[in-house]
């Protein structure tokens, strides 16, 4: 082993980095951006899940529990009428509501504490915050009902999901779309760059092909592949992983297809800003990771710090993920206005990217 030769390799590598400013920026800027975002997401969140309380109890204990809930750090509470609860779960203004029934005090004195807990149900993490807050309130209550053992029997009802609904069901619905989006994006950006680096794009440009024809041809070609992949992912998720699905399979497939088309066009568009496959791969942490963090896949957008919520609301992936969850978890169909919005935004994003890809195609040849 020659130290001289090893040094030559090391030096060659560092010399290359010196001229590749973009890679240097990625190495030193991207980790700060990603970790900073993650830190802000997890610690900067000020909003806790919104929970409604309907105290219908004729006795004194209901008010005590309601008060304990209001002071819980796990949730933010609003007083509601029990009859409005379901409507407010559906419109998303509450993630749960707790009804303390008319005979609550009476039954508590008899040793049974039975609040009704109505969960929206599609976000497992949020459910546990609600139940945790309720449990703490029950501890306060137990200290008041002296001299007798109290049995805590909450009546849990879920609008969506169900008792078997687990973390995989929640994440799976989003990941079915995300896996397709991510892989199709990577394949498209690398292939389109190949077209540049192997010189064939120059040939295409010297032919009567129009820019729009190139972009459209690419989009259709990759979409065919992406649709086959989307079908495979969907079948595996439903048949093998048994991810819960309340919606129409064709609708899921349609949403996946929209995400694939968006990914193809994002790949074509971003390939205009990279000169090599190496640079293209660098777009993954910069473009894809923040989208994954902010699109509500892991942290619900409603619990993000306010500033990040604005950012999340302009990311197309947020709508795609929301749409997938609406279909698979809540059984949404095209009559739901939320799904119309989600599908519309993703489709609009596709159109925007097709136009952007076409407009920037010639620029980088000259």
């Amino acid at each position, binding site marked *: 082993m020659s130290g001289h030769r090893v040094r030559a390799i090391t030096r060659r590598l560092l010399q290359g980095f010196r001229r590749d400013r973009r890679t240097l920026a990625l190495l030193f800027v991207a980790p700060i951006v990603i970790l900073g975002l993650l830190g802000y997401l997890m610690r900067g969140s000020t909003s806790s899940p919104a929970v409604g309380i309907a105290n219908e109890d004729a006795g004194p204990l209901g008010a005590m529990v309601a008060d304990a809930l209001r002071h819980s750090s796990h949730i933010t509470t609003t007083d509601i009428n029990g009859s409005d609860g379901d409507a407010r779960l559906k419109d998303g203004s509450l993630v749960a509501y707790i009804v303390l029934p008319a005979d609550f005090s009476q039954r508590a004195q008899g040793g049974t504490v039975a609040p009704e807990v109505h969960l929206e149900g599609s976000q497992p993490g949020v459910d546990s915050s609600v139940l945790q807050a309720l449990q703490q309130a029950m501890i306060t209550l137990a200290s008041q009902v002296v001299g007798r053992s109290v049995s805590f029997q909450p009546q849990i009802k879920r609008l969506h999901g169900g008792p078997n609904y687990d973390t995989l069901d929640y994440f799976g619905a989003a990941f079915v779309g995300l896996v397709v989006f991510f892989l199709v994006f990577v394949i498209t950006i690398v292939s389109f760059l190949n077209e540049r680096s*192997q*010189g*064939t794009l*120059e*040939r*295409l*440009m*010297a*032919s*009567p*092909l*129009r820019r729009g024809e190139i972009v459209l041809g690419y989009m259709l070609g990759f979409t065919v592949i992406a649709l086959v992949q989307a079908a495979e992912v969907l079948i595996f998720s439903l048949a093998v992983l048994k991810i819960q699905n309340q919606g129409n399979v064709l609708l899921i497939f349609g949403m996946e297809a929209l995400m694939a088309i968006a990914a193809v066009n994002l790949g074509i568009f971003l390939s205009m800003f990279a000169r090599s496959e190496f640079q293209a791969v660098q777009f993954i942490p910069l473009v894809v990771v923040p989208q994954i963090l902010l699109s509500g896949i892991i942290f619900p957008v409603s619990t993000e710090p306010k500033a990040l919520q604005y950012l999340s609301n302009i990311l197309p992936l947020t709508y795609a993920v929301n749409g997938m969850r609406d279909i698979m978890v809540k059984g949404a169909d095209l009559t739901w206005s939320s799904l119309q919005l989600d599908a519309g935004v993703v489709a609009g994003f596709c159109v925007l990217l097709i136009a952007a890809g076409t407009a920037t195609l010639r620029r980088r*040849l*000259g």
Partner: protein
Amino acid sequence: MNDSYAVDVEGVSKSFGAYKALNGVNLRVRQGEIYGLLGPNGAGKTTLIRLVCGLLAAQAGTVTVLGQRMPNVAVLRHIGYMTQQAALYPALSVEENVTFFAAINGADGGVKEALELVQLYDRRGSVVATLSGGMRQRCSLACALVHRPELLLLDEPTVGIDPQLRVQFWESFRQMAAGGTTIIISSHVMDEADRCQRLGLIQYGRLLAEGSPADIRAQGGSPNLEEAFLALAGRKES
């Protein structure tokens, strides 16, 4: 502008940042002519060819091809362009590559003839990634002429091709020119220059001299084309 010229380049300049690739170049090529663009590496040959097929826009001057001001997409159907690097799809077969370029140029058929011309018909099923450099170059040529263009732009087409095949290439070029195809070939190989009807010597982005090989010899004062070129280049430099 004169319609009898297939290519008419007038006072064209093109810079890339501070680097002046072409500086006031005038060039006229008649229909059916084989025109050789000669010059060392970096002289501006490829830039000039890219301007002629509309891949680049000139900062000054005009480029007229087949009677139309460039860039013009409609004219591109009548142009065949072979890039310096054999620009092909490595995962496709020889025939699939040629068929693709025929299709995007709006030609039906002609694939078999093009493959026979470059002597790749027997290898039409071979995947391009498995071919030698010379074979790729031949396949690239087939892609450039499959749609029977009126103007063929060949950027160093014979690099990596054995002498025997080179002779056949030139025979084909001559036949095509006789049939009315205009051919512009860039090269830095002097023995190729002798096969052209007219030559343009280009260096530092300027056209130093123009004429038949005999004219160039006379201008350079040497019976040897290479020496004549060096003499002309040196004269302009000093």
